[in-house]
């Protein structure tokens, strides 16, 4: 039997996080009462005219550069016509033949190997409103608050060949776009939406098979499942000599399979033409380079720099650069005086754990990088023990945002490194533990170790542990039998 390979292209819609909509000054915001973030423009009222949001254009150009695209010297908006209750003008302002960005690529890691996936185009368009279906069957209702939200549509080349590759493409894309700060790319909340075009063909064949479009996938895992199902469905059909019907299928998230829309709708004839209400856009090479200069350092470059500059493990460097905010937090902590290694440990082990447990994001974190650096400095200067830092200081900083110094002073946690005081605690510990003393005199040097806990208890945890170890070794030596004479 012939081997088949899948051919997948993804169309991703990303909502931009501008303050206002693409063509009007209504707030770009969700969760408000229906039809309250609307105006004559986004309601599509007769006579109202669109005006392009400068920030949305800037976001599009940045995203294009991020995806290694060519930025068009000349670009324009076109009207795409279809009737639907969530589209009040009965056309969507989009881009047809001259999108802002063309011909780029995105590098993904697949089985640890880097692979470039072609980006056909990135274009700007406005989002539609929300149509909700009354479960009672009474009718449907329309909220136009979302109408006019700026979107980027990112179209890949059909160069993905497995659900894993599609998944890697999406996670990489999401990470990069989040890094840019132009969208939060949350698929569950709809700020990132993905449609897939899938076909199968015998391995070795270079022409494309009949493609099927899949919609309604609302998580990255959903995309993976839908593609797996669909590839298997098509492979079985083709192997059995059946023809694939070119159609749109919906992913049923409950049954985890794709189902035909079986819609009677005729072939699309969108009748694109240049929007006469909007002037074209031009981008000079100088403008494009100026935007390029504002791009943030991207995860991969940053990871390599972190690993080299701060001697971090590959794991830590990857973790700390997975989100731009975290990388910036880390760097700010180092900037404030912490060593890279210590900052990495505290962020990776303590801060992230605490944030996860409290369901908070880094942006909501009450510990400033400077405070974290101060706390690390207290540990490294032996002013407090790392145990105290971890158990007594950090949790209070996390909960209250108080400075570590204030917490240490208030709790009297300042570490004791005074040898006289520590010697007194060691002697007291020896007196309280005659068994240890007996073990020592019988030559069991290791018994001294059990005194550490007692000394720390006597000091209420404030004794400098390194010094405690050193003093115990020093003071218990007298009890040990003399070493045998060399033969």
């Amino acid at each position: 039997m012939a081997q088949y390979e899948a051919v997948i292209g993804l169309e991703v819609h990303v909502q931009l996080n501008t303050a206002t909509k693409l063509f009007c000054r209504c707030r770009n915001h969700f969760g408000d009462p229906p039809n309250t973030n609307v105006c004559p423009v986004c309601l599509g009222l007769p006579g109202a005219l669109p005006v392009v949001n400068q920030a949305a254009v800037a976001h599009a150009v940045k995203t294009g550069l991020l995806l290694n695209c060519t930025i068009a010297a000349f670009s324009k908006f076109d009207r795409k016509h279809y009737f639907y209750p969530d589209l009040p003008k009965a056309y969507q302002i989009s881009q047809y033949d001259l999108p802002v960005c063309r011909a780029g690529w995105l590098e993904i890691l697949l089985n640890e190997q880097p692979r470039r996936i072609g980006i056909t185009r990135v274009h700007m368009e406005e989002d539609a409103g929300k149509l909700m279906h009354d479960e009672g069957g009474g009718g449907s209702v329309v909220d136009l608050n979302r109408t006019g939200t700026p979107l980027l549509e990112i179209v890949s080349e059909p160069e993905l060949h497995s659900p894993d590759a599609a998944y890697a493409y999406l996670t990489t894309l999401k990470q990069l776009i989040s890094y840019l700060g132009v969208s939060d790319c949350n698929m569950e909340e709809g700020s990132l939406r993905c449609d897939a075009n899938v076909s199968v063909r015998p391995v070795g064949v270079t022409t494309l098979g009949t493609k099927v479009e899949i919609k309604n996938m609302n998580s990255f895992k959903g995309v993976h499942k839908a593609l797996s199902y669909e590839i298997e469905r098509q492979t079985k059909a083709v192997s059995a000599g059946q023809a694939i019907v070119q159609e749109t299928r919906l992913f049923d998230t409950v049954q985890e399979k794709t189902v035909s829309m079986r819609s009677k709708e005729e072939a699309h004839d969108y009748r694109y033409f240049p929007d006469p209400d909007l002037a074209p856009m031009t981008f000079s090479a100088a403008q494009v380079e100026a935007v390029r200069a504002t791009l943030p350092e991207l995860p991969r470059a940053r990871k390599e720099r972190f690993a080299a500059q701060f001697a971090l493990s590959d794991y830590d460097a990857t973790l700390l650069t997975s989100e731009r905010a975290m990388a910036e937090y880390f760097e700010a902590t180092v900037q404030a005086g912490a060593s890279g290694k210590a900052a990495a440990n505290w962020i990776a082990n303590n801060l992230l754990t605490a944030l996860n447990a409290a369901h908070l994001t880094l942006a909501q974190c009450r510990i400033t990088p400077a405070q974290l650096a101060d706390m690390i400095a207290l540990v490294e200067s032996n002013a407090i023990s790392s145990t105290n830092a971890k158990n007594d200081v950090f949790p209070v900083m996390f909960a209250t945002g108080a400075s570590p110094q204030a917490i240490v002073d208030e709790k009297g946690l300042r570490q004791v490194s005074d040898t006289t005081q520590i010697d007194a605690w060691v002697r007291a510990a020896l007196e309280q533990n005659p068994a240890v003393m007996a073990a020592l005199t019988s030559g069991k040097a290791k018994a001294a170790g059990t005194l550490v806990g007692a000394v720390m208890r006597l000091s209420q945890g404030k004794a400098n542990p390194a010094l405690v170890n050193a003093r115990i070794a020093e003071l218990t030596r007298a009890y040990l039998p003399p070493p045998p004479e060399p033969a």
Partner: protein
Amino acid sequence: METVADFLAALRRGTLSARAAVDLALQRIAAADPALQAFLAVRADEARAQAARIDEQRAQGQDVGPLAGLPFGVKDVICERDHECTCCSKILKGYRPPYNATVIERLRAAGAIPIGRLNMDEFAMGSSTEHSAFQQTRNPWDTTCIPGGSSGGSAAAVAARMVPMTLGSDTGGSIRQPAALCGVTGLKPTYGRVSRYGLVAYASSLDQIGPLALSAEDVALVLPHLAGHDPQDTTSAALPVPDYCAGLSGDIRGLRVGVPKEYFVAGLDPEVRHAVQAAIARLSALGARVEEVSLPHTEYAIATYYVVATAEASSNLARYDGIHYGARAADTRNLLEVYTHTRRQFFGDEVIRRIMLGTYVLSAGYYDAYYLKALQVRTLIKRDFDAAFENVDVLVTPTSPTPAFKLGARTADPLQMYLADIFTVSVNLAGIPGLSIPCGFSEKGLPIGLQLLAKPFDEATLLKVGHAYQCATDYHTRRPANCTDLFDEETKE
């Protein structure tokens, strides 16, 4: 007391209060409009209240604006907040926009008083105002004739002296042609001179709002309060607006006047030809240098226009689907029927024709052959004008090939109706300004219009030439016969 200049002078002198100005307009509307049917709605109470406020503010010494107290009429295609705006279509029956058009905001800020809504061809598609879904406006010079269109109500209201100024819109001649046929002065400004925000779109790349009044001087008085950049209209030009009145010297000696030979061909009514040639001779006598020029692509203008305009119209009118505002057909079984029944039931036949034509020229497989081709020819037409204006300051042509025709004479033949726009559509395709002024009368007493064209944003030259011509002639001061008695009565007071 009929022109904008008369009204403003009396209002400023204090011999006419804003309240009296509004009452005068209301009386004239009450007297003349029942026979002419220019107004769809008259807002007497609101206009009187606004006038009273202006009088009060003026009495208190406040700045009430340069047009304070001037009553004007609004074509039913321009949005006024909370006032029904139907574009004379059943599909927008009951539609009340929640916002004002920029021109309305500006005129109100200058103190002018909107007094009512004016009849038009449905969605501004037509040349006779016979395509209004609601009423038939008649030509004040002969009530068995059409007033022209689509701004037929706007032209008839000024011609019958009901109001000194009205707003119209012009996509292919809809201000100039009714101005010519009703014997008034109408300006289609340069594309981008006046904000389109709040003008219900017919063909967005061609539409412009403009004033209709009794003289070029009146237009010059009003235009500065319409024109200028509007941040809400991306296609409005960020250029300064000159003082148009300052240029009205009456002196056009040395002005270079071009006469495009393609506009004087078969099909031009002999009376119109004669009147226009006489007008050209008059301009020459006033010291202008007249020469023949050529606009070689003129013959393609109508075809180009009907592709571009209907393509854009099919898009602009897609939104009238019975969902978010306006009428919705009753007894529909599903969403598709809401769309198809609403649109079939409430659009008139001319609108349906243009939507179908526009849909066709944009549809898959026809775009290049029709739409793209028309945009290329549009370039050629624009280049013709650019070339002509290298040698002349203005072009002079007839506005309409014939005087007003009888009601019903062309409704059965859409193409014949389209050909009435032959001298006006090129101007919209090229985006240049055009002024129509009265230049004579037919033997039957119907007005004939002269069209003056200038390079983009040179409205000042058009008004200067129009004013010089009107200083030397009296066609623009003649009144339709049935108006005379009423106004003679008034002037005796």
